[in-house]
């Protein structure tokens, strides 16, 4: 009768994210009784490419490899825990860019072997959704997931995050990032952030005529980007001749107003369809305050509200991978070493969500 089994008060996961140009490592704990999460650390290092350029897979992977150890050590120091307390190592399986994903998966495997901890592969999009739910307390919202690589309207039903609408071509974040390149706006801290700041300087709130492309709950951005690029070229020509013209700020303003109106519209359509009045915005573009404001106005009309997080959780990070991974871990999910691959395409609705009712 000497040994009363020690029940742990909390479970701890370390999460590694590197599906695009952010390398993030975060440590989270879940209370074993209540399940409530506590962020112990959340460290990120971003690969920033020069103005007018995008980040290439090769360079991005090199960035992640060179910073992994530094970021991991910092995350452990910030969390103030010992390695023995960690229950599992979570990493992003996909979707994302091949080379950066692989470099971080290899690092996660190394930690798993080094410390003898089980691995948990996580879907990046599910990571965003679960983190957003945890931070905002939105219990069953329609989710708008908007980032550089994804644009999806999602709602939960029967053990899966179901995709109701999505882009038919490029992601909204990609549209904004590429337009920032056209205007040669800085990529520091993020092209989308700089577009947002520039849009605020548009003097007269003039809306330039851009296509508006919504199909049911789907939408498309490539036609808008081409037209915005054309207008930018036209503006540069006129300015070069010293003629009066609209400004880059007017272009950013018009682009934002148009694409965000589309996003709000498809979200509203999904809310009407599933009968929900909560909306959660996740993903890097979700930091945009104008988008949050527009979404808030729509949700208020429907008698509901919008939930959004700030850049710590909106922008890719390790903590969301740790959190979603730990939720799966707690249901018994493991990723055996020999299956710990990653994949560029990994749809949100492929994940069996065992941890929700």
């Amino acid at each position, binding site marked *: 009768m000497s040994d009363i089994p020690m029940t742990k008060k909390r479970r701890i996961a370390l999460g590694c994210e590197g599906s695009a140009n952010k390398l993030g490592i975060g440590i989270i704990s879940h209370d074993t009784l209540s399940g409530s999460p506590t962020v112990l650390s959340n460290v990120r290092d971003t690969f920033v490419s020069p103005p007018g350029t995008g980040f290439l897979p090769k360079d991005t992977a090199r960035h992640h490899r060179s910073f992994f150890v530094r970021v991991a050590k910092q995350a452990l120091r910030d969390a103030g825990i010992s390695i023995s307390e960690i229950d599992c190592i979570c990493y992003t399986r996909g979707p994302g860019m091949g080379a950066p994903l692989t470099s971080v998966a290899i690092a996660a495997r190394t930690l798993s072997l080094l410390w003898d901890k089980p691995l948990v592969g996580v879907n990046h999009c599910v990571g965003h959704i679960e983190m957003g739910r945890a931070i905002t307390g939105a219990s069953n919202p329609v989710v708008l997931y908007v980032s550089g690589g994804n644009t999806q309207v999602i709602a939960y039903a029967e053990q899966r995050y179901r995709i109701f609408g999505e882009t038919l071509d490029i992601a909204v974040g990609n549209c904004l990032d590429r337009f920032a390149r056209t205007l040669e706006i800085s990529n520091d801290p993020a092209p989308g952030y700089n577009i947002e700041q520039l849009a605020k300087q548009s003097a007269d709130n003039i809306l330039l005529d851009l296509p508006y492309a919504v199909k049911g*709950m789907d939408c498309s951005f490539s036609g808008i980007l081409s037209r915005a690029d054309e207008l930018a070229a036209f503006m540069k020509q006129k300015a070069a001749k010293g003629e009066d013209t609209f400004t880059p700020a007017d272009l950013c303003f018009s682009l934002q*107003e148009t694409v965000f109106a589309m996003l709000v519209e498809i979200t509203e359509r999904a809310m009407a*369809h599933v009968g929900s009045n909560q909306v959660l915005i996740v993903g890097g573009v979700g930091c945009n305050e104008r988008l949050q404001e527009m979404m808030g106005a729509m949700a208020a009309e429907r008698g509901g509200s919008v939930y959004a997080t700030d850049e710590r959780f909106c922008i890719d990070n390790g903590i969301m991978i740790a959190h979603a991974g730990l939720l799966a871990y707690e249901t018994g999910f493991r990723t055996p070493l020999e299956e710990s691959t990653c994949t560029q395409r990994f749809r949100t609705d492929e994940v069996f969500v065992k941890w929700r009712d």
Partner: protein
Amino acid sequence: MSNSPAMTEFPPPQILTYPASSAPVLIAQGAEGRLYKTTYLLPDQPCALKYRPSKPYRHPILDARLTRARILAEARVLQRCRREGVPVPAVYATNEKAGWLMMEWVDGAPVRQRINEWLGARPDTEAAQVEAQSADQTPLISLMQRIGSAIGRLHRTGVVHGDLTTSNMILQRPKEHQHNGHTGEGAMEKGKALEGHVVLIDFGLATQSSSEEDRAVDLYVLERAFGSTHPRAEELFEQVLQSYKETFKQAPAVLRKLEDVRMRGRKRSMLG
């Protein structure tokens, strides 16, 4: 009929503020508009008034442009469909400046609601799946076929819907069950719950097009909406396509295109 609580919350369009024998009732706050039930010309002639209020989140220029374009598109397409025998409500009146369109009242419930009632609220356990498989699917299959043929007829007239979902179809209550209420739950026994004509509604995003690509995207949008809304009946979607093919001569080419559209969807790069 007394004012529903929602009626007092939202300002209705001016036309509904005039004295009438029966007060208008807010039936639904759809994706874009609010749908009121009111009467047209005669006090016993019910009609649906679809009001698209201005959207406060949208830039006023964009808002005015979209509202106007959609009301006019909806009216134009409804009239065309009506002429060609596609099952849609008749248009009574429009006022694109004030943002409304008045049309025939369709007595019934959205197909989405009927399918969900039919499938029941069972959890997705293995037992429920076995049960679902053994249950008689004939009424559901027949409904899917009616959906497919309604879309076939729509495409045949050179119209693509632009927002096909099971919310945008009304399952019209068979004549012998009709009364003036909109929902009237539980009145029908289960065997008859899925009977009735499928009436297509909500043509604000519709366009006139005969391109295979546009038609295929129309089907793709419905296929995905169907799968995410009714995951338990996903495999029955094939029936929609089957009867679409039987109704519409050019269907084979559209269905081949649908394959491409699906592939594009699945293969779409997720990269930034």
